């Protein structure tokens, strides 16, 4: 029962890039890691994955990442101020989320976990919608079909099966869109994820499995989940897997686009492992100092996705101070909108407990609702509920 660490897992194995797409061999960065922009902001080419974006598109990605980071930071502040019960920060994962989210088409369907605030942003989901669950006023709170962005899923790995089933449905319907399922490196250990790989492969479902390997599942490093790089797992299920530099928004965009196209064109599922890092705590209740080092964090800070794109924009002369100031101003406005919006978010009515337990209704729920309403009314002060005050005066405690 030895549980000693090996080098496998966190460091990509040498020459391990062979995939059905011909192998994601390196140009910049580590073996097997697709990279188009180095941490220093140098553009590099990759044999298999290329991208050619307009200056507007490049600036757009920058703006997306900055606004997402600001939204996230504001949410952490709001949690600290007691406005949110909990927050799961995406700090450090902006490129993985913006790059993959921007790779989707509006008719693609997305199944997130609970940390995909950046992906939600790319789908025009109102950031305030994401906060209701963390504030404790609802357990989801948006219409998944409005932006083809499913509810957050907390039970680890469960959504990968839903994504696969949805993709099977798309294929049966002859639709040419695809599905993308997000999950973490920890989630890759769950039976549900393995089963989703099996179903997707067997039914050739148009689904992209997008694993954000942020190196940690709460306190457990990736090597406590897998002894092979996660993208290599796909091979055993019979579909391609690729590892992309998750802090390189260009590479993530290029690889995810290709993976979605692979799925849409009838070639079945594909696994993308975005190799990235969770810069903050797992959630606001977590204390990462108990399990990881400052050095590790600093090492990853040097690979910051936003700084990286900015230095590229600067080197290419694609943005000036005026542009950056504009983005900052937008970020400030977003933060204010979020702050005001959250503070103004009302608590649900108590009777909301009984709403939506069933679509077709249930007599027991009706009975309990009526009993509880009567019980609550029995506490009403003479002031607020004239109807019941006299009869129930004796019961007020």
């Amino acid at each position, binding site marked *: 029962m030895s549980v000693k660490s090996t080098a496998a897992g966190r460091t990509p194995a040498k020459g391990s890039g062979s995939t059905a797409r011909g192998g994601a061999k390196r140009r910049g960065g580590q073996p097997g890691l697709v990279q188009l922009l180095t941490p220093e902001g140098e553009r590099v080419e990759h044999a298999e994955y290329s991208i050619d974006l307009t200056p507007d598109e490049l600036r757009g990605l920058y703006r997306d990442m900055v606004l997402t980071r600001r939204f996230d930071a504001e949410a952490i502040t709001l949690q600290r101020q007691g406005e949110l019960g909990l927050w799961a920060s995406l700090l450090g994962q902006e490129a993985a989320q913006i790059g993959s989210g921007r790779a989707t088409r509006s008719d693609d369907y997305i199944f997130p976990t609970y940390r995909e605030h950046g992906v939600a942003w790319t789908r025009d989901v109102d950031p305030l919608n994401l906060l209701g669950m963390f*504030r404790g006023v609802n357990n989801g709170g948006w219409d998944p079909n409005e932006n083809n962005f499913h509810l957050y899923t907390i039970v680890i790995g469960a959504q990968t099966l839903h994504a696969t089933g949805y993709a099977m449905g798309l294929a049966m319907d002859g639709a040419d869109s695809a599905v993308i399922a997000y999950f973490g490196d920890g989630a890759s250990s769950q039976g549900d994820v393995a089963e989703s790989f099996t179903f997707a492969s067997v039914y050739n479902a148009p689904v992209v499995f997008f694993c954000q390997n942020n190196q940690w599942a709460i306190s457990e490093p990736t090597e406590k989940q897998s002894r092979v790089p996660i993208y290599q797992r796909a091979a055993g299920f019979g579909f391609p897997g690729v590892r992309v530099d998750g802090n390189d928004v260009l590479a993530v965009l290029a690889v995810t686009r290709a993976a979605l196209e692979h799925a849409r064109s009838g070639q079945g599922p594909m696994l993308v492992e975005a190799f990235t890092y969770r810069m903050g705590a797992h959630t606001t209740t977590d204390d990462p100092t108990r399990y990881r080092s400052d050095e590790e964090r600093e090492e990853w800070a040097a690979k910051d996705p936003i700084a990286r794109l900015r230095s590229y924009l600067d080197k290419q002369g694609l943005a000036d101070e005026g542009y950056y100031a504009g983005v900052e101003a937008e970020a400030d406005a977003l933060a204010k909108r979020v702050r005001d919006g959250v503070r103004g978010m009302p608590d649900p009515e108590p009777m909301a407990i009984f709403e939506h337990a069933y679509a077709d209704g249930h007599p027991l729920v009706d009975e309990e609702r009526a009993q509880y309403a009567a019980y609550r009314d029995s506490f009403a002060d003479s002031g607020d509920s004239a109807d019941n005050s006299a009869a129930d005066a004796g019961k007020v405690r």
Partner: protein
Amino acid sequence: MSQTATQMTIAKALNESLRTALENDPKVLMMGEDVGRLGGVFRITDGLQKDFGENRVIDTPLAESGIVGTAIGLALRGYRPVVEIQFDGFVFPAYDQIVTQMAKMHARALGKIKLPVVVRIPYGGGIGAVEHHSESPEALFAHVPGLKVVGPSNPSDAYWMLQQAIECDDPVIFLEPKRRYWDKGLVDVSAVPTALHKAVVARPGTDLTLAAYGPMVKVCLEAAAAAENEGRSLEVVDLRSMSPIDFDTVQESVERTRRLVVVHEAPVFYGSGAEIAARITERCFYHLEAPVLRVGGFHAPYPPARLEEEFLPGLDRVLDAVDRALAF
């Protein structure tokens, strides 16, 4: 209480209990997500990996079915695994292994094998968490033959019952009342503990019996204290074990008080209150002055945090049921 009694929280008592079990029996193992370096998200296993090593306090992959399934294998090999499921709502990936495998193996092997596995689950609401972090699934386990289901309500029981569960040769679902983790009480590590499945009278009274377990015992004790001011004497029985249930102790109490209200956080419908009501009605039909009443959660998904105080039985809902029982 002897000199050896000290004040500690339920969390600390559980930690001490696990430490003692690891010290006393080299076959005892801890397994679960984040139980090692982090000491568990509630720190119940804090410091144990440091002192007992990675082979006895095992950080597992994030796979509940895998955790319980491999614990079964380890038990077959002679180990006594103590598994931590991080939160109530995450036990379901392991539910298959627990229900279809762990619960039945002893019987299928005609008694030739034993499965001394303890599955620890922090359960219940009241901590303002997001969904799947506040549920009370005890009835789902108690309904399954082959499993034992217990849950302490105070530090002393936490300390003793966990060791008794680990010593038990049957699989035990050990439910930890997470919102009481930080409540303090006296623990006497040299006392003679109460038997694992025995119910106890936590507060004597004469007018009505409140039966509860885990997090609701405290609410019932508070309700009894409040009722006293109104001239009513309520007896509180802490069931401690949900499978088996010590019906004798409940029966004795009800024969004295003639009224029973069962309180739990889980939805009332098909809940443990129904079982208790049925059995006690059968046993105490001629003693009862009122039907057995139940107070618990609604037949609705556990609500978001801002509504959980509405969902969870509090003092007033317990006392309301007491009023109704006494009005018969």
